[in-house]
């Protein structure tokens, strides 16, 4: 059980994010929710990389000790950059939405669109 606490943390982060995405009406809060899910998934990937008593996979000065797995590090790197890209695009769309409707409330926007 104690060994599963990192996974519980991951699931908690993902769930908080999911809650924000499906329950909140403010667009900025939805974006924060997506970022939280993203952090949860990144944390999960990094968690998978760890082996007990291991060092980072850099050979110089590692002294032939056990190394943590390199592939999840690479995947996390990719996933972080993708997250930045999605975030930038979402925020610029929000800037435009605010210019058009003067509000960030999803319901209000829906009413103004009618």
């Amino acid at each position: 059980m104690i060994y599963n606490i990192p996974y519980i943390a991951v699931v908690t982060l993902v769930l908080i994010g999911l809650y924000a995405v499906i329950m909140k009406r403010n667009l900025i809060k939805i974006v924060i929710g997506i970022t939280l899910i993203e952090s949860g998934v990144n944390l999960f990937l990094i968690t998978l990389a760890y082996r007990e008593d291991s060092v980072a996979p850099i050979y110089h000065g590692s002294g032939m000790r056990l190394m943590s797995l390199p592939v999840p590090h690479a995947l996390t790197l990719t996933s972080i950059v993708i997250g930045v890209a999605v975030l930038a695009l979402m925020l610029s769309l929000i800037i435009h939405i605010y210019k058009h409707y003067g509000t960030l409330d999803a319901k209000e926007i829906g009413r103004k669109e009618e």
Partner: protein
Amino acid sequence: MMGMSKIVKTMVSVALPLTLIYGLYIIAHGHLTPGGGFQGGAVVASGLAMLVVSYGSVWTMDRIKEKHLSSLESLGAFGFIGLAFLGLIFGSWFFNNFLLGNEYLFGMIGEGASNINTAGVIPLMNFAVGLKVIAGLFAIVLVMAYATSKKGGDL
């Protein structure tokens, strides 16, 4: 937004060169130490974002156009995919590490020693990606800051 106070501007002009050098160091040593093109590029871009914050986006936009940043980014991306295509031509597979094992440039295989002249195309790819990330992230920050500034609006 006309920029922040004189203290902030002075601090930025001191910190900016250091940030740039640190970022370039991370890019150049990507194949030896933690870091690489993306991380170093992000450091440099955050240094440049400091410029936007302290001097204001309109001031920055007068000096650096987003068109040029976009071209620079295309150049970086083209360098990256060009290296991959060179792998197809010289190494007979797309993304082949064709420089590995040559005697002149980055060809050595570093057995434990932190020798910068190692790893084949990886350092070159790091440079290409670094250029791309610097230009790309700075362009995003600049464009979004300009769009929300009072004077600005559309590009």
